[in-house]
């Protein structure tokens, strides 16, 4: 009995501990869902639902003349930014950084890219097409350069600025929102359900590196969701 206590019990405890440690269900790393959330009580008295902010509804036209909406990105992650074709300042640097991400995921159908022009009066479909070609982006379905003013809408610029503001205020509580959203070089990472999962300063190499690190995490989560749906 003494021998059991001295030798076997610690061994048993160690074995149990090891098993417990190795077999505990692994918590997958997940990116936070950014922005405001609303807790809504359920009518049936069950646990309240948490409703997270999503990007606003939009209807745009891309460089191929195709209409794109939130539904275009359903089931996929996408990276969004705001630019304009004649921008001599941060835009070339910003789009250069996004191009690196695009190049890595150019053939991955799980990821898309969406660049909104904030100069819809100048950036017509043909200007956007030319801009995409100069970046060597040939497939508009992979990287959309989109406008709110394809049909000469008089409020096109108001719309895109409201969209930019909504994107980033959806992601940041008011007190943190820095303003100047449409031209601060930020990339927004959006998940398959329209939630913003990350904001990245394109002018900071560490932030771009973080996007490279976090995009696969989001894709794994989306893959898991799809498998879950398929398995039901």
């Amino acid at each position, binding site marked *: 009995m003494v021998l059991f206590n001295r030798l076997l019990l610690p061994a048993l405890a160690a074995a149990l501990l090891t098993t417990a440690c190795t077999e505990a269900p692994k918590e997958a790393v997940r990116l936070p869902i950014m922005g405001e959330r609303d807790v809504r009580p359920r009518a049936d008295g069950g646990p309240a639902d948490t409703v997270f902010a999503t990007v606003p509804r939009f209807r745009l036209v891309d460089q191929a003349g195709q209409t794109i909406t939130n539904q275009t990105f359903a089931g996929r992650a996408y990276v969004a930014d705001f630019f*304009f074709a*004649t*921008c*001599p*300042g*941060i835009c*070339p*640097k910003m*789009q*250069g950084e996004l*191009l*690196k991400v695009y190049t890595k995921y150019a053939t991955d159908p799980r990821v898309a890219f969406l660049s909104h022009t*904030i*100069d819809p*009066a*100048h950036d017509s479909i043909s200007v956007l097409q030319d801009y995409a070609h*100069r*970046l*060597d982006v040939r497939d508009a379905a992979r990287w959309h350069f989109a406008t709110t003013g394809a049909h000469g809408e008089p409020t096109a*610029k*108001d719309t895109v*600025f*409201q969209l*930019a*503001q909504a994107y980033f205020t959806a992601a940041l509580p008011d007190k943190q929102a820095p*303003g*100047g*959203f*449409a*031209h*601060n070089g930020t990339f927004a990472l959006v998940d398959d359900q329209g939630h913003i999962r990350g904001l990245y300063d394109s*002018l900071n190499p560490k932030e771009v590196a973080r996007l490279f690190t976090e995009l696969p995490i989001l894709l794994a989560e989306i893959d898991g969701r799809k498998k879950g749906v398929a398995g039901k």
Partner: protein
Amino acid sequence: MALVACLAACSSPNKPIAENGPASPAAAAEMALMNRHDSLMAQTSQLYEFKSKLSGYHSQATAPYIHGLLAADAAMMDWMHHYKAPDTTAAPASRLAYFQQQQQVLTSVRRQYRATLDSAIKFTTQHPAGDDVAPPTSR
């Protein structure tokens, strides 16, 4: 592809001069110009925020303010559409002169931004709710 390579390789205009080596006067002037441009563009969001806010008053009294905001935006976009950075092979003196001249234009645009934003801020502060504004016919 040349543009792709250029985009990927070009150094940030926001980098400190020391990181890119000592800047020539023309390069420093170009950097200052781009910084001014980026700073103004960041404020363009504000122009549209105030335009949206003022439009919500549904009053003719806001028309001059909205017109001012749009004129400031138009001045900025006009600069942008006509800006053409001289080729790097151009004479340094002529590059410097171009950037300095463009800086003057942007200084004027910045003044216009500031004035119109200040007016809009003042108006919305004085009339925090849209229904406070008397219609022009009652004046």
